[in-house]
């Protein structure tokens, strides 16, 4: 055999080995992807499986006899008396009428089929339509949260423990007669938090998250980009800038709860800012997001080809013109992507906000940056810790809302990048 054929034989043998290695390497990669996708699928299946019912509400339709006598009213025309009237009694009476088998002793059990806030709704309806007094009207009320979960999870015995057997029989009867209805839970999106799961919603948390994010974006993007531009383009390379750089990198790895402690100590205790407000939440999250934005913005600036910089300098652009006219437009997509990733992190952050009091039970959606509020992840945290099954369900639903929020933010990031990206 000549040297050349020997050589060719050797190459062929090594080739086989190389191909084997390559396919093994590829298999590892595919396995990693499969594990990641599998984990994601399990997560989604769990959350959606538990949470979809949170997007449904149960209502009961009753024939309510608005008899002044039942409501203990002497003078049905006196608004003051009407306000003080007993609106639970006509509801219980209506439920009693709807369920022929019920007796006097069952009053309490009957009352607990209907949402505790139904009487308030009834009073409001009557105050708006005084002419209803003395008539019988067909009205729809939210069911009690125990009835709600029972109706939505008929097959699962775990959801029926809060109802007595008699109550279960009544509900089954009402369902059969079509008086119980399950429909889209608009209450979940129009209400703030509530002690009653059937009345609890995420509106307050969504608005709170939105306000907090606005503050975070308005502060962290300009500050982060400005810091990145200064460090990359203008700062001299010396010990001080090295020190700053090391510290920025370290800050990116600091646990977020530390930023919460800082916010509590500095913003609330030192500066005397109010607790639980989106403004302070935004400040704390800004501190947390800044390192991420600075680091990604610097990477984006570094990726601008030096030839573009030279071209601009060559025609006599000043340092600032080079940065504003050429470097910044080319780096902007990268900066935005980094910022939105940072914002998405901030949106999902709970720990630092607990420390500045955004964990309080707040019913009304905030109306401004200095209005006490909570945010979506904290709302999830609050509901998930509740012993009531209906709240657990709503926690899962709130997680889905949060995920939808995050996905739309990421979609926005991709869209912005595609739109602004340029070739060079």
């Amino acid at each position, binding site marked *: 055999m000549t040297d050349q054929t020997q050589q060719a034989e050797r190459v062929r043998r090594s080739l086989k080995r190389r191909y084997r290695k390559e396919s093994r390497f590829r298999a590892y990669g595919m396995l990693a992807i499969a594990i990641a996708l599998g984990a994601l699928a399990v997560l989604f299946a769990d959350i959606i499986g538990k949470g979809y019912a949170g997007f449904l509400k149960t209502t009961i339709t009753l024939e309510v006899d608005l008899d002044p006598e039942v409501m203990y009213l002497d003078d049905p025309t006196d608004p003051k008396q009407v306000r003080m009237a007993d609106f639970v009694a006509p509801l219980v009476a209506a439920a009693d009428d709807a369920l022929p088998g019920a007796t006097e002793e069952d009053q309490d059990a009957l009352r607990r089929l209907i949402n505790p806030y139904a009487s308030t709704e009834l009073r409001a309806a009557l105050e708006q339509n005084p002419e209803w007094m003395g008539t019988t009207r067909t009205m729809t009320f939210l069911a009690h949260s125990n009835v709600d979960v029972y109706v939505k999870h008929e097959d699962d015995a775990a959801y029926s423990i809060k109802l007595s057997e008699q109550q279960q029989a009544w509900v089954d009867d009402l369902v059969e007669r079509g008086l119980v209805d399950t429909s889209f839970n608009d209450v979940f999106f129009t209400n703030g938090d509530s002690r009653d799961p059937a009345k609890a919603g995420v509106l307050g948390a969504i608005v709170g998250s939105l306000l907090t994010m606005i503050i975070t974006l308005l502060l962290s993007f300009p500050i982060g980009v400005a810091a990145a531009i200064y460090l990359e383009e203008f700062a001299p390379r010396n010990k001080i800038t090295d020190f700053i750089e090391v510290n920025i990198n370290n800050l990116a790895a600091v646990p977020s709860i530390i930023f919460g402690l800082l916010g509590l100590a500095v913003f609330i205790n030192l500066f005397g800012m109010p607790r639980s407000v989106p403004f302070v939440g935004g400040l704390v999250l800004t501190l947390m997001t800044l390192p991420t934005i600075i680091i990604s913005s610097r990477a984006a600036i570094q990726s601008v080809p030096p*030839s573009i910089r030279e*071209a601009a300098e*060559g025609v*006599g*652009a000043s340092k600032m013109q080079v940065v504003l006219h*050429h470097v910044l437009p080319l780096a902007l997509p990268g900066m935005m992507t980094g910022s939105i990733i940072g914002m998405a992190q901030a949106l999902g952050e709970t720990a630092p906000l607990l420390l500045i009091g955004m964990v309080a039970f707040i019913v009304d959606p905030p109306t401004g940056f200095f209005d006490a509020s909570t945010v979506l992840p904290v709302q999830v945290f609050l509901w998930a810790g509740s012993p009531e099954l209906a709240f657990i369900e709503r926690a899962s639903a709130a997680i889905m809302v949060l995920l939808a929020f995050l996905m739309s933010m990421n979609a926005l990031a991709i869209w912005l990048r595609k739109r602004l990206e340029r070739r060079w």
Partner: protein
Amino acid sequence: MNTMNPSIAAKAGAGEQEPAIAVPESRPEDTVIEEGKTVGKPFAGDADSPKFKLRNVSVSYGNDRAIKDISLDIRRNEVISFIGPSGCGKTTFLRCLNRMNDSIEICRVTGKLMLDGEDIYQSKKDVVELRARVGMVFQKPNPFPKSIYDNVAYGPKIHGLANRKSELDEIVENSLRKAGLWDEVKDRLDAVATGMSGGQQQRLCIARAIAVSPEVILMDEPCSALDPIATAKVEELISEMSESYTIVIVTHSMQQAARVSHRTAYFHMGHLVEVNETNKVFTAPEHELTESYITGRFG
């Protein structure tokens, strides 16, 4: 950046590419310069009042001295080419002329560099104004990722050379005409410049440089990334432009130096070995290093 090799720093990341097809590497047997034939161009201008007066210029990157004590006059309206082997400092020297080396922190320039009698390295000298007077064309075509129009209009815009849109349009058209690009792009001035061919891009960069009406144009191997046809066009352009501009061109192609320049300067290891009429440098070099280089014994 601390331990940057001077030659790498000077080349700024661009590859060493020769237009190999058009201009074969010179070897002793096919030396460009045939016996008795005159190359280069006679210089008709004034040799006594130089545009650039450079005295004892040294450049160092940290402890490496890239340019060692070079003195040279660049005459008004001449085309002077810098030739020499890779890493000899010709690009570094070129970039001193409009202070493009400023952005390299460890780079230090000493000596006197006078443009029309004014020291360009004095501390109060405005580098922006200097670069408006001394334009530059780079090795790799580097148009901005903007429209063709915006590329040419950028310089005049930032220097405030046009008050009205019509004036700016005129400057853009004139510059593109001078760069021989107008007829090719007049219908697509809004097209993205990076979509053009390499040769067109380089001529656009030349148009961009002349749009600010500089007095001097520095060209750093302007044809090294171009094919022979595009190279021929750019060379033609250089010849035309020499009437109104002083042009300093760094080139690896001796044929190019011979074709376009009035004078040629040969650099070696940071020294200026020889500078003379192009004809003389190529036909009767005074220094043996120059002779070795142009006959292809090294380089």
